[in-house]
């Protein structure tokens, strides 16, 4: 590529950011900018500068000044990842009347200075990256963002506390909300809890007023016993397909009087709401304060559905609200934004064989204990052993079950410390039993949390620092007989201890929903290897996702307590309200377009597109891309045998030139450092 004859047609400015010492500490930025101005002039570089913080207002002004004075037609900024500051620098260019898409941000921080230690190699790599950016930017075209209107309605998936909060915020602002909940009632895990830490106020007492508000709100459409099946469209214009499971109850007739479940002869272990400790009927509402108040018939257990006879509920229903012929309904709603607040599943403590859950009767999980302690629970709030009557005299509470453990989940479940302290208090208060808390570290970092810890110490709970090794009923001496023995190293003493107790409570950790990966796929967002959904930025954008228009709130993003879930619900709502009020949204103009002149009509691209954005004109025998549906992946561009499809923003010219640039093939050969070593 002899550049001698060619006169560069564009005037390019190169800006190398120090990012304090983040880049300059490893990459010799001065050398890089000088190199760019010396060696890339044939490519059109007319100015190359380095500056301490390009993203600062002074840094941006520097670019704007050059655009005006040096008449730059292209800008390359070598700084951090485009995912962080691409918008910043595009806006800077826009401010100086340069089309924002004529600016290219190349990453010499995340991809260079932060990941390499060899300063010389890192500096050389920075040069190559900038060279690639320059070669590419020349082929950029001025683009205009696509503007699409935003539908004012919002879909919220998950009716736990995070979803409830978000729904109320948006509905109160006057916009419609669809709240989809898989269970027969909203309320989520919070409805199961007895008390909430650290204030010890009754969970149901603070939750149910909010549930009632949701139920009565004119802007909220509740879709309980329902699941999202499919999501089409994009930000501003989603079409969501929802399956509403048959309740077998005519909700327009049902008064929620409760005669049906009184009369129902079929008793079922309630492994959901009562955590397997209590029973419900085959027709039921999960709990008395359920919203909506209508029951459902569980068609897996209902005698009529199993054997074909019974219909006791139907016989006794005073309003004839039972309808065994109801079918699942599929409905589609249109929304502009989506909040996912699907919460968490409890870690299955049976997976820890040494803790004996499921094998030793008096080993309970945290959820079981919440129900035991709850006055609306199966024992009326009496804390008793599995025999249903004996009050324990000593209780061991085990922290970190299934959390902070590479055999199960590596992360800290965040709530178990406070929850276990709460349990210690409740056991102490209700039974007077001796309570041991077995912990690795006590983590109480929120407001009034550590004070709560102090209070529990003061109440006389015995703290043993050590991860419990095993819980067994194999006694070694008469003192241990008939007890559960908690075997642990008391690490502060440095000795192994065997502590006999009557009851053990396992603070099992929080896990992503078992189907979180499938859910992420449905909504087109990403989830971490653990299964928690990934936020746009872990610190600065915790409720948005990489997919425009899809937000996350509550434990779906990671384990957190009630206050944090509420904050996220409200935060996601605020983000969406801001968008709705703008009435339209600008989308990246990264789209494919087909040059009809070149299209041979082979239709290879038609089947490749997952969004059905390519239509084929039978009359003219050519294909065409619908820009509203195209998401810009570029697969069709790569596949077109005729080269008839252009990918805006990622065109062949751009990428092929960038390859040249990265390999330093575009250099004026005078002083070039050969990156491609001469070969024999």
């Amino acid at each position: 590529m002899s550049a001698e004859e060619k006169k560069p047609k564009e005037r390019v400015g190169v800006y190398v950011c120090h990012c304090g010492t983040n880049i300059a500490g490893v990459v010799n930025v001065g050398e890089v900018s000088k190199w760019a101005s010396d060696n890339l002039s044939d490519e059109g570089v007319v100015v190359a500068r380095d500056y301490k913080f390009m993203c600062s207002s002074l840094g941006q002004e520097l670019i704007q000044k050059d655009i005006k004075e040096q008449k730059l037609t292209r800008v390359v900024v070598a700084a951090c990842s485009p995912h962080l500051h691409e918008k910043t620098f595009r806006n800077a260019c826009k401010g100086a009347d340069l089309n924002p898409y004529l600016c290219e941000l190349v990453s010499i921080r995340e991809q260079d200075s932060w990941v390499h230690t060899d300063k010389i190699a890192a500096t050389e790599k920075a040069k190559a990256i900038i060279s690639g950016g320059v070669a590419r930017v020349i082929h950029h075209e001025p683009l205009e963002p696509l503007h699409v209107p935003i539908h004012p309605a919002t879909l919220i998936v998950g009716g736990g506390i995070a979803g409830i909060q978000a729904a109320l915020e948006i509905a109160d602002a006057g916009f419609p909300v669809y709240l989809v909940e898989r269970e027969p009632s909203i309320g989520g895990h919070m409805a199961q809890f007895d008390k909430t830490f650290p204030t010890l106020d009754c969970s149901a007492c603070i939750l149910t007023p909010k549930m009632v508000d949701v139920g009565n709100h004119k802007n909220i459409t509740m879709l309980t016993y329902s699941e999202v099946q499919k999501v089409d469209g994009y930000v501003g214009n989603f079409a969501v397909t929802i399956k509403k499971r048959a309740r077998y109850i005519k909700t327009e007739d049902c008064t929620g009087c409760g005669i049906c479940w009184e009369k129902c002869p079929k008793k079922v272990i309630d492994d959901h709401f009562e955590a397997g400790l209590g029973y419900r009927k085959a027709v039921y509402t999960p709990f008395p304060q359920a919203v909506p108040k209508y029951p459902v018939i569980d068609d897996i257990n209902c005698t009529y559905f199993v054997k074909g006879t019974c219909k006791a509920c139907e016989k006794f229903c005073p309003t004839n609200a039972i309808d065994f012929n109801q079918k699942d309904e599929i409905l589609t709603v249109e929304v502009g934004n989506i909040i996912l607040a699907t919460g968490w599943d409890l870690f299955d403590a049976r997976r820890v064989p040494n803790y004996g859950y499921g094998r030793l009767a008096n080993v309970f999980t945290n959820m079981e204990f919440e129900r035991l302690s709850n006055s609306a629970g199966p024992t009326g709030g009496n804390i008793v052993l599995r025999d249903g009557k004996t009050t324990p005299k000593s209780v061991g509470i085990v922290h970190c079950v299934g959390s902070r453990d590479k055999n199960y989940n590596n992360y800290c479940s965040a709530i178990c410390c406070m929850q276990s302290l709460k349990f210690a208090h409740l056991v102490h208060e209700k039974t007077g039993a001796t309570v041991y808390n077995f912990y690795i570290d006590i983590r109480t970092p929120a407001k009034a949390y550590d004070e709560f810890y102090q209070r529990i110490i003061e109440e006389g709970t015995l703290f043993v620092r050590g991860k419990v090794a095993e819980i067994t009923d194999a006694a070694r001496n008469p003192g241990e007989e008939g007890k559960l023995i908690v075997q642990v190293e008391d690490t502060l003493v440095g000795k192994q201890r065997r502590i006999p107790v009557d009851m053990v409570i396992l603070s099992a950790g929080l896990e992503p929903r078992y189907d979180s990966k499938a859910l992420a796929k449905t909504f087109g967002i990403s989830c971490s290897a653990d299964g928690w959904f990934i936020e746009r930025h872990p610190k600065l954008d915790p409720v948005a996702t990489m997919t425009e228009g899809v937000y996350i709130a509550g434990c779906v993003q990671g384990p957190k307590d009630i206050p944090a879930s509420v904050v996220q619900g409200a935060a996601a709502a605020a983000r969406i309200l801001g968008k709705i009020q703008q009435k339209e949204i600008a989308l990246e103009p990264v789209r494919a377009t087909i040059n009809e002149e070149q299209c041979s009509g082979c239709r290879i691209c038609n089947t490749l597109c997952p969004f059905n954005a390519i239509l084929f004109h039978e009359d003219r025998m050519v294909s065409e891309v619908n820009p509203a549906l195209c998401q810009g992946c570029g697969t069709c561009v790569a596949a077109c045998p005729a080269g008839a499809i252009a990918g805006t923003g990622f065109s062949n010219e751009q990428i092929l030139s960038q390859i040249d640039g990265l390999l330093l093939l575009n250099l004026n050969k005078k002083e070039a450092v050969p990156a491609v070593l001469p070969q024999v």
Partner: protein
Amino acid sequence: MTDTPETKPLDSTRDKPFEPVMIGFTCNWCSYRAADMAGISRMKYAPNVRLIRLMCSGRLDPTFVFKAFAGGADAVLVSGCHPGDCHYATQNYKAMRRFHLMQRVLAQMGIEPARLKLLWASAAEGQIFANEITKFVEEVRALGPLNWNTKPNAVEVPAEIPVEEVQA
């Protein structure tokens, strides 16, 4: 365990161990973010790979890969979201199919197929991304410089793929 490393192949022209030049293609959603994640977490890896961001690994036109080899790259990395996690539904499967095809073509052209690597990395897998790059660099270093009987720049891969008249 003082295992002496095998003598690395030396580049004939320099008295330094051979440092391969590699081009990497990432998708915008998972693997580029994995690279970002590696950076944010300050994970260290070999500085030999220079990345190009595509929207999707499905955008990867085999021409890009051949162009990179023709331009003197010793190896090419193609990375995308894990199968099933593609931001564009299934397009990374298309990249995978092209990958196998490209390996075969490379072999026919006399280039070791091991110089082309496919790597799935989710946005959270910075560590995997970093480790795999370091590993790949070692593998390519063991293969030595790309020994293709052309000088750099000798093969012109046209930026514009020529359009031939197609009889409808």
